[in-house]
Every structure is written in C-alpha cells, then in structure tokens.
C-alpha cells in the first residue's frame, strides 16, 4: 500500500496509523499532523488511544500499519532512541522517571554527558549535577539536591522534573501526555507558559490533557480521537470550549461543525 504525505509542510504527519495489540485494535486509521510552531491539543475520552498514538510516534510501540513523515521525510521510528535523534522529547503519562535513581541521573538518562580517559568514557558527574539543577531552575523547578532520589519526591515534583527534562532536551517536537494531572494551579500555569515559550522557540507541541480549559488556553488546534478513530481537526477560531467538551463526551460532531470534521475537503 502506498502512502503519501497529506500536509506538505507539516513538522509531523502521521498517515493512516493502525495499531493492534494482538486482536485489540486500538488505533484504526488515524491521520494526525502537527505543523511547525503549532500547539496541538490531542483530546479524547479515557482509552481513546491518545497515549498509544504518541507512543507510536515516539517509537515506544511499533506501528501495525501506516506511515510517519517527519520534517517532510518518510521516517521509520523503530525505537525511542530514533525519536530522540529526530528531536522529539516526550513526557509520558505513565513512563516518566525511575524512582530509585537520583534527579541528575534521571535527567540525563539515555544521553549522559561523558569525558574520556584514554579509551574509557566516564560520566561527567559535575556537569550532570550542575546542568540539571540549572535547567530545572530555568523552567521554574527549584530542587534541593540533584542527588536526591526521585522516589522520595511528591508526584507533582516528579512531573515537573520530567517536563523540565523534555523542555531542556526538546529540539523540534515536544509531546506532553497529561503533564498537568498532578500539578498545583501555579505549576500548571508555568507548564502552560513554557508550552507557549517552546512554540515561540520554533518547536511544535502536542498537548494531551483532560482539562479542556488548560488546553484551550494554549492550543492552536484540537484533534479529537474517539475509540481509535479521528473525529476531526478543529482550529481554535472555529470552535468554543464547550463544543470541544461536548464532542469528547458524545463522540459526535455538532451540525454546525460538520464542515471542518472528518472528510472535510475530500
């Protein structure tokens, strides 16, 4: 089967994505794209397949069928490592940090800075400590000690660290899967702020959440997923907050918006 990129200058274009876990069909032909410098709110009911979709994009799951284009090229993202190489950073809903490891080690996991002595490459612990403290302070998270284990921290603190890490390393695309679920009002506002800051730096952002108010504040466009199908793409200018909420709950596109919904323009 031949795929072709549908949105010519999108940063990411996922075409006809299918993902089956054995006989469970979680994604059944989803098209999804993120433009450059765009914040997309990815919405849907519990179990709709949002996390699965971004796990396919980040190489955590292999896809059953479909094609991903990144920066205009067809890419095969086979592992999270590949996704990182492309400049994609993710805050996963359920796979954030390793509780028994220190903040600094979590922060640098998978791309630790090293220095070499002869043929041996050893961790640059000083850099790990100072840069992680600095980077987290930049996004407003002040930690006491970068050697503290993550397991002793509160849920919100952990989430902040995962977000800080993604913001620090993200180059082209930032994916936030329910980043604010454990955060206080103030912290949530910070996350929304640096979501916008990331966009202004030229990155694309995928923002998944159940709190429509948050995402309505920052997103440029909403993609609603309903039990493995895409319900539609809606620009913020086209819909109201309430309409978005209704669509998520009912899984129906209101009459007024049929034009923009699935099949629009085809």
């Amino acid at each position: 089967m031949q795929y072709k990129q549908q949105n010519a200058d999108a940063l990411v274009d996922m075409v006809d994505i299918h993902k089956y876990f054995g006989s469970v069909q979680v994604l059944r032909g989803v098209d999804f794209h993120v433009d450059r410098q765009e914040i997309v709110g990815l919405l849907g009911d519990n179990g709709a397949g949002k996390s699965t979709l971004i796990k396919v994009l980040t190489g955590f799951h292999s896809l059953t069928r479909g094609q991903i284009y990144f920066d205009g090229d067809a890419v095969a993202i086979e592992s999270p490592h590949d996704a990182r190489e492309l400049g994609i950073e993710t805050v996963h809903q359920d796979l954030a940090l390793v509780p028994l490891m220190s903040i600094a080690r979590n922060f640098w996991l998978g791309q630790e800075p090293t220095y070499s002595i002869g043929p041996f490459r050893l961790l640059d612990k000083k850099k790990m400590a100072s840069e992680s403290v600095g980077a987290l302070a930049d996004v407003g998270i002040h930690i006491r000690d970068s050697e503290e284990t993550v397991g002793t921290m509160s849920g919100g603190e952990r989430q902040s660290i995962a977000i800080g890490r993604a913001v620090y390393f993200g180059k082209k695309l930032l994916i936030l899967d329910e980043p604010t679920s454990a955060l206080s009002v103030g912290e949530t506002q910070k996350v929304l702020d640096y979501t916008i800051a990331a966009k202004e730096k030229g990155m694309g952002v995928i923002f998944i959440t159940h709190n429509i108010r948050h995402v309505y504040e920052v997103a440029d466009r909403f993609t609603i997923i309903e039990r493995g199908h895409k319900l539609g793409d809606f620009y913020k200018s086209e819909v109201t907050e309430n309409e978005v909420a209704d669509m998520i709950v009912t899984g129906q596109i209101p009459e007024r918006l049929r034009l923009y919904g699935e099949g629009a323009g085809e």
Partner: protein
Amino acid sequence: MMQAYLENKREAATVGLLVTFLNFGFAILGALVAFLVFFGWMPFGERANILRSDLNNIEIIVTIASLIYAACCARTGFGLLRREKSSLRWSQWMLFITVMIGGAILLSVIIPVGLKFSLLLSQDIDLRAVINDTAAVSELAPMALMVGETLIGVNLFLIALLALLALLVFIIPPLDALRRIDGIRLIVAPPRRLIVAFMVLLTIGVACVLIAGAFTVPLYPGMTTIRDAENHRLLAGLLFFLPGFVGYRLVRQVEEESDELRRAIALTPGKFIRSELAKSPSAGAIIGFIAIFMAFTMATDLFLEPSSVASFLSNVATKGIIAIGVTYLMISGEFDLSVGSILGVTALSFMNFMTNGAPVFGVMEPIPAAMLAIFVAFVLGSINGVLLITTRIPSFIVTLGTLLAFRAITLVAIAGGRILRYSDHHDALPVIAISNLVFMALVVIGLLVVAFTAYRVLPVWYRQAAHAWSIREANGDFGTTGALIRTGVFLLALFVIVIAVIWLVAVFSYHSSAGGGQMVEVGYFDLFNGRVLSIGSEGDFFHMPIPRNANVRLAIVWWFIFVAIFHVILTNTSFGNSIFATGGNEGAARAQGVNVDRIKLQNFVIVALLTGIAAIYETARNPGVDPLKGTGWELEVIAMTVIGGALLTGGYGSVVGSLLGALIFGMLQTGLVLVGIESRLFAGTIGVIIIAAVVLNTLVRGGQRN
C-alpha cells in the same frame, strides 16, 4: 535549647550545665579507662597474664583512643562553660560518640557472653545447680537468673495468652461481637504503652539472664576465655552509654537564627549518619559486616589470625566474582539461576581442553584453553540472554531451565560420576618461565601507571583539601566534616603512592641485581589462582613477606580488582546508568532511548564471563573437575548479592555491596566453626542472616518510596 543556654537564657541553663558537667564527667571517665586499660585492670583481647603489663595492640589503641576522647570531652566542656558557639556541635558529636562507645563496650561483653552462654546451655549442663553450688559466684548470679527467667517466662506466657485470645476473636465468627467490647479491643489492638511495657520487661529479663551468664561463663575455663575482669567492662559500658544517651536526647533540640548554622545544627549526628547511609545501597551490608566482624573478633581470638582471614577470603573469592555479575543482573531486574551449571561446564571444558583436547585445536596449553573455556561460558550466557529477550519468559523460568540443561552437559560428558583430573593425563603441572626482561618491563609499566595516576589525581585532591580547609578556617567548625575526610584521603593516597613506588623500585633493583637475577618460574595454575607464597622463588611474593601458613590465593586479588573495575562501570558510566534504569522502571528507561533488551543481554553475558573466570580459578586451585561442580552455587551467590543490598525487584544495589555480602558469607562460614557452632547450623544461620540483612536494608533505606 542549647542555643538558649549559650545566650544565658534561664530555662535552658540547667540542661546546659548538665551537659557541660556530663562532658567533664566523660573526660574523667575516659582518662580513667585509659588508666585501667594501660595497667591491665580492664583487659581487651587476649593477654597471657592479667596483672602483667604486657599490653597487646588492641589495648594500646584503646588507651590512646580513650586519652584523645577524654581530651575532646574536656575541650567541649570548657567550650560550653565559655559559651563558645562551636561547642554546640562539638557536644552533639561527643555525646553521640559516647553513646557509640558505650554501646560498643556493652556489646563487647554481651556478644561473647551470649554466644558462650548459649554454648554452655546447649551442652546440657544444669546451670542452676552449678550456680547454687559454687561459692565463687557472687550472690548476684542466682538471683539474676531467677529474676530473668521469671520475667521472660511471665512475659512470654502473657504474650501467648493475648495472641491466642486475639486469634480466637478473629477466627471464630460468633465472637465477632466481642470485638466491640472495650476490654477486648485492648487485645485486638493493644495500645502503644502496653507494647512498650512488655518490651521493657522482656528486655530486663534478657538482661538479667545475660548477667547471670556473665558470671557463670568464667567458671568453665576449659571451654571459654572470658574472665571476670572482662565483665567489669559492663560497668564502664553502662557509665558511658546511659548518661550519654540521656544527654544526647537532651541537646537534640537546638534553635538558631542563622540559616546556615541552623542547617548545620539541625543535622544531628544521628540524622547525618542516617542520611549518609540511606544514600548507599550497601549501607545495611556495611553495618552487618562491622557487627559480624566485631562479634567474631570478640568471641574468639582465632578469628583475626592471618590464616583464618586468608582461608575465608579464599573460600569466597570465586563466588564473590560471580556475585558481581549477579548483582549487575539483579539491578537490571533479572535473575540467573544457571551460574552453578555454567561454572560446571566451563570448568569441565577448561580441563577437557587441556587433557583430552578440543575438537580443532587438540590438547591445549592452559592459557588458550582458559580463553576457549571462557568463550564457552560466553556462549552459554548468550543463550540465557537471547532466550529471555526473544521469548519474554521471566528470567527465573528461563534460567531454571538452563540450570538443568547445562548441568546435563557435565553429567553426560563425565560418565559415571568420575572426576576428570589433570594429573591423570600429565605428569607434572604446567610451568611457565618468565624472563627477567619481561619481569622488569612489567615493573616499569607498573611504575608508569602509578606515576601517571598520581600526576592526574593528586593535584586535584590537594586543591580540594586545601579549599575545604580554607572554608574551615573561615567558617569555624560548621559543615567541615567533609574537609577533614578529604584531607585524610589525600594524605592516605599520598602515603599509598609513596609505598607503591618504593616497593616497585625495590622489586626492580632486586631483580636487576646479580643475586636476585634468576628466571622466575611460575606454575600456570598458580598464575591463575595460586597460593601467593608459591609464586616467586624464595617463598615470598615479589619480595613481600607473607606468613607461610596463610592460604592467600591470587583469586582474592583478582576479585578485588574486578570489584573496583565493575564498581566504576556501574556508578560512573552511561552503561551503568542504563542498568539501574532498566531495573528501576523498564518502561521509563525505554522511553528515554535506553535499549533495554541489549542491556539485559549484555548483563547475562557479563555474568557468564565472570562465572567462566571463576571456573578457571576454581579449576586452577584444584585441578580436577567432577560433574557436580558448582551445584548449589547459584543460591549462595544470590544470597551474597541480597545481603549486599541489591533489590530482587531490580533498580537498586551495588558491587561493593556484593563484596560485603560475600565477605559476610565467608566470615560466617569460617567464624561459626571457630566459635564452635556446628557446621550443620551453618545453612540455618545464613538463612536468618539473609532475612535480617534485608530487613536492615529496608530500614536503612527508610522513607524511600518505590
């Protein structure tokens, strides 16, 4: 509170004065102890005649330590009198140290007495009769025994009764209604105070029995080595322990305006040590190691003999090497039950390659044979790893399968349970001659390595130490423990380097001189794992005298080297970081781009390689292989790893911990025999120790959530 004292606030003045005088009291006590020990009234260790003043080493150390301690106490007391700020922290530490000293002295009586008393009990001696008969025993002993036994008995009876009642209430449904009655609630959920009361009574009971024991044990001079004089330490211990404890609790609360000062002070010695320990996975093992080491040292004089130490080190060295690999694997969340079988196959291959010959290469020399055998281990480890990552079966099952399957190889290869011996095929053990040139080249390389590391490391350490010292000068005594340690480490390193250089130069000149210049003949097997003294020509190890009776095996040296290398890899490379992440949260590790499968495969291979190396050492030590070689090792090695603080669930552990675990294992193996406990009890003791170790590890890790 203490701060208030320094500022002359009335309400705190009493406590402050109390602590001040406590410090003076301890100073006097310390001086007294030094005096008593020096003149033989309070013996430590073994001593021929109590009244003769032939001090042994332990006593000299104790004397000096007590004098230093007394001086520090006096200094602290003066500081408090003159209301110096730094004396606050000093007094905390001094009291803390006092409690520790008191506790150690108490333990030094209680542990041996307890051990020996239980030995006496196990010998079917009617204690009561002995105690009543002997006039030599003071009146105290029978009374203490009676009180103790009564207390323990009544306590146990009450506890059993309550437990029974509680059980009844829970099990029998009709009695359920009873639970609502007030009196019953007492049983079902006893209030804290009741529990504490029970504990206190029980403790007093045990203490009484111990005191009785302390007086009874010396009556059996043939069987024990405790003398009355040693029991006098009980008093000293109590004098240090109780006031110190009370004082420490009193000065615990301190308040301070300056933020930095408050941080320094709020971190009481207890908290400081606990937080330091909580950072290290091997903390529990460290405590256990010290405790067991002290216990055996106090319980028997044979334990610290070079021969005993050497023998227990030699016994665990090879297992310790395997434990390093198993630790890696366990940290990454997996498990290897097949190491014993891999060891068997590798040892068999090694021996077989040298005697019957390998398929292509024919009969081989030891070193190529060893390499090929280790390759065999590599293949076996890869089989484990590949099976795991392709089938996704839990490693417990996979390696249980390979445990049996690999064992089949040796069982089939050596028919009829024979032993494959090197001496059956060759007349003499293989020998390699090392020419002087090679030897001297090795020494020169050694010198260069030493010089290079010194060049790289020392200036850095010196700068650090100097910097820390300047902080100390500027800030006084606060937060400078690190400075002292760093300075100490720097001096120690300097010392070690100087010694190493001198020794290497000595070896160099010895071998280049006319007299010492003969070829060095080394047995191949000795090179792998010989007695250290059999290397070199004149019963010395490269010029270093080693007691002739000590069974120091080279594998010990290799073991420590491996520990150092693998420790650095685990804690200081991205590979090590990935191992922790893989075991700690596989999904998160994968999401961050760690190739989890590769890490696991690599770890299985590492275990197998280390097992292969251990197999070579084992075979070299005793050049014969039987088909059951290595059976049961897997569990012992896992025990060592778990004692060393690794979590079975993955994500936590350390190589140093595995070293300590193996050492604890070895100490128990040797020590229990020396103390006179039957070897049949060994497995049981290890079982208890494992559980205790894991409990200890969990306690030390404290509040850390998973």
